[in-house]
């Protein structure tokens, strides 16, 4: 369970999050949606201790993220972000292998190697394992970074826009994989999504944010209504139910 | 950039003029011999032979370098370059070294001609090289320029080392006005001429700062303008290095400060750039004479400190404002 209590955040006097409180149960796939600048990524950063906590509290399985040793947290929770450092000269296998760092501090055991192979296979990267990251396409690199987060083996996976750069085939495959990770392995995934239809199709729970506040929170069918969506994005969309699923036509 | 309201601009302008006048008075009165204790003719001699020439030299050099910095920023379309950041002054020093080696009997004027030519070549090469840099990275150009100047310096030092000319090198590399006397600075009056010329062409310069396409659209011969600007920058830098040695940061700081007070229309702001350059240089020169009185600290050292601090402030401030 991730418990967020009264978290506010500001950067150089500009408020980013206002008194956000939220509880995310274990074993679910939660999608964060909302317009640009809503504070979705910032909220993830605070939960993952990338941003220091300014006020309020965040606890993961009862452990406060600001006071728990970073190494201990790294075995419970991980985050994948867009801005990755300079990793041009790393192979895909080396990168995914970094996911084992919290466990073996860089000296890989046989178990680590098995986990790496598993992650590579799961994300369809086995054929690319020996390639340098710099030589990959954006989508391939994206999958490699998600595979690294998966390989870390944490109960909680926070993913900031993991569908960026992915074509439809890989975007669908990524979402199905994440679904599988939640259903079969009981992991918890929190994901920032821009395409609300992916959220509608794959998420157990949707958190809608705007201007640093949570506007709505609940199962997809409750959150994705015409009124809510207009409140969020500022224009009317058509919401259809097809075979019990929600589909949003958000373009003309 | 925000431009300050008219009242405070006028106040700042008046303040600058008064401060400048006070600096001139200070520069004329500060020195090893106390003018009030010696008799009339001797005091007058000191004033005419040493103090006045020195003050005039500082003013001419300061105004000239500030204008050279302004022109260079216009040509490079980057606010963070000047003749010291971009290899002009270092190239001029290379020219003087060359002249000293090949033609030891050269007069100061002849050395200046050679230095102007090398400064021209060095600056043109810099402007050609930085065209290849991505325009989205404004800080890349000054960085490139600093190291470019450093590489030229290393080359000059190596040659000077081989030829046993290191002690001369220090004279050209570190600006110092203490050697200025009547008869040894008059070359610098050229700077006054160039500043006047720059003001004459201020509108054309403003248009050139908008870039090649806009300039051509407004009927300005852009290439001609670039060549003339380059020549002015090279000449101003070369005469400075020949007569007093390298002086850092004036060309960077002053145009930036004036631009935030008076905006970027050069017809109105150019005289203030000249005055500001003269004021900053004069202030630092007087400071150098007072700090360790009766000894002198060269202006290159003072301006290196003051200028680097101001440049860091400009960099931080610019970022704060977005």
């Amino acid at each position: 369970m991730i418990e967020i209590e009264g978290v506010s955040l500001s950067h150089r006097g500009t408020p980013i999050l206002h008194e956000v409180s939220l509880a995310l149960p274990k074993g679910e796939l939660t999608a964060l949606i909302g317009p640009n600048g809503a504070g979705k990524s910032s909220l993830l950063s605070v939960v993952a201790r990338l941003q220091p906590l300014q006020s309020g509290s965040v606890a993961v399985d009862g452990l406060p993220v600001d006071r728990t040793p970073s190494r201990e947290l790294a075995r419970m929770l991980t985050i994948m972000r867009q801005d990755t450092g300079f990793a041009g000269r790393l192979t895909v296998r080396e990168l995914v292998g970094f996911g084992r760092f919290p466990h073996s501090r860089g000296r890989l055991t046989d178990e680590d190697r098995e986990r790496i192979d598993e992650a590579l296979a799961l994300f369809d990267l086995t054929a690319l394992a020996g390639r340098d990251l710099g030589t990959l396409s954006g989508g391939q690199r994206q999958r490699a970074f998600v595979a690294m987060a998966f390989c870390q083996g944490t109960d909680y996976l926070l993913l900031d826009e993991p569908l960026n750069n992915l074509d439809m085939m890989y975007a669908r495959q990524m979402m199905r994989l994440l679904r599988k990770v939640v259903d079969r392995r009981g992991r918890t995934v929190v994901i920032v999504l821009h395409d609300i239809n992916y959220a509608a199709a794959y998420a157990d729970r949707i958190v809608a944010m705007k201007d640093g506040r949570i506007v709505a929170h609940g199962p997809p069918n409750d959150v994705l209504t015409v009124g809510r969506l207009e409140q969020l994005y500022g224009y009317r969309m058509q919401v259809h139910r097809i075979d019990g699923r929600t589909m949003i036509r958000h373009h003309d | 950039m925000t431009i300050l309201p008219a009242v405070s601009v006028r106040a700042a302008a008046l303040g600058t003029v008064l401060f400048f006048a006070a600096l001139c008075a200070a520069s004329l009165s500060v020195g090893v011999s106390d003018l009030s204790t010696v008799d009339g003719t001797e005091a007058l001699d000191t004033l005419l032979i040493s103090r006045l020439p020195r003050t005039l030299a500082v003013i001419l050099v300061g105004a000239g370098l500030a204008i050279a910095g302004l022109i260079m920023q216009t040509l490079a379309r980057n606010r963070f370059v000047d003749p010291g950041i971009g290899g002009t002054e270092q190239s001029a020093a290379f020219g003087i070294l060359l002249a000293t080696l090949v033609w030891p009997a050269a007069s100061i004027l002849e050395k200046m001609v050679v230095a102007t030519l090398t400064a021209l070549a060095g600056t043109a090469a810099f402007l050609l090289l930085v065209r290849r840099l991505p325009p989205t990275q404004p800080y890349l150009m000054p960085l490139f320029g600093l190291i470019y100047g450093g590489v030229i310096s290393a080359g000059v030092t190596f040659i000077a080392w081989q030829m046993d000319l290191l002690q001369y090198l220090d004279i050209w590399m570190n600006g110092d006005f203490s050697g200025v006397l009547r008869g040894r600075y008059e070359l610098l009056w050229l700077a006054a001429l160039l500043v006047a010329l720059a003001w004459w062409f201020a509108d054309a310069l403003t248009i050139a700062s908008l870039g090649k396409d806009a300039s051509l659209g407004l009927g300005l011969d852009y290439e001609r303008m670039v060549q003339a600007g380059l020549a002015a920058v090279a000449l101003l830098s070369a005469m400075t290095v020949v007569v007093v040695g390298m002086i850092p940061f004036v060309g960077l700081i002053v145009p930036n400060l004036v631009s935030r007070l008076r905006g970027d229309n050069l017809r109105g702001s150019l005289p203030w750039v000249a005055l500001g350059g003269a004021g900053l240089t004069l202030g630092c020169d007087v400071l150098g004479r007072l700090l360790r009185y009766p000894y002198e600290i060269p202006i290159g050292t003072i301006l290196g400190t003051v200028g680097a601090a101001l440049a860091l402030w400009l960099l931080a401030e610019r970022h704060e404002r977005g």
Partner: protein
Amino acid sequence: MNAAERRVWFAAGLALLCAATFMTLGLRGNFAFVLELRAVKLLALVQVAVAVAVSTVLLQTVTGNRILTPSIMGLDALYLLGQTVMVFLLGGLGFASVDPRMKFLCALLAMVGVAAAVFLPILRRQVPLFRMLLTGALLGILFRSLTSLVGRLIDPNDFAVLQGSGYANFSAVRGDLLALGLVLTAAGAAVAWRLRHVLDVVALGPAAAIALGIDWRRTVTGILTLVVTLVAVSTALVGPVVFLGLLVVALAERMTGTQRHAVLLPASALIAVAVLVGGQTVLQHGFGGAGTLGVIVEFVGGTLFLFLLATERGR
């Protein structure tokens, strides 16, 4: 043994060859005396090489770019400033008679303090690369000018003694700091080696490193302290070395084709030894004179830097 490791051994062979040549070439006269003299010099050169290479790798890793050296960020100037300010403050109290090792340690402490105050905020705020580089370069000029200013305040006439030429002089090393430098360099290199896996993770950038359980703030502070210490050693021994680190790390990366610190650290250090010792041998016995290696390295390294700047598309 994989290809990258083989190349590290190749670099080791090259470094060894340079050292052997340095010791034996043109040996004449009193063998024992000359050999001892050369051994001391060799030891100093190796120390400087290792300190420069390791500090550059560390700083590049922690800042996340490969076109940086500690000197571009003004760290060596900071050491000289510390020394000069101490002379200024304590000049009247017989500072000249104080043990040079004592002076070195005091300057080092001051330097760590100032570096932490000035550079940690820059590193924490994740300032974009070129702004960080320009800030560092301007800080370097500020520190150098301040050093020269304070120097002139101390002694307006005899300043040249303190100032030197502004380039490293590899033929006149400070003997009195050799032992202390050796301890610090060896300790620094050992710590860096122990941290090699952590450094691989740090190179992924703060977000990924924190997600992998690195205590970013503590790690960065520690690495910066290490960098400052190593820079102090090399600056105290020979003077400012700006581009050597850039040169050898770029060469090491080209040669081994990897950024793994287990390879990059030793490869850079060994190449640095080869460049310094080999270059000094050539200059002593060939053309150019012994004093000019520093200037040549700056010239070549600076040109390389310009090339890297022009090709780096500013991520």
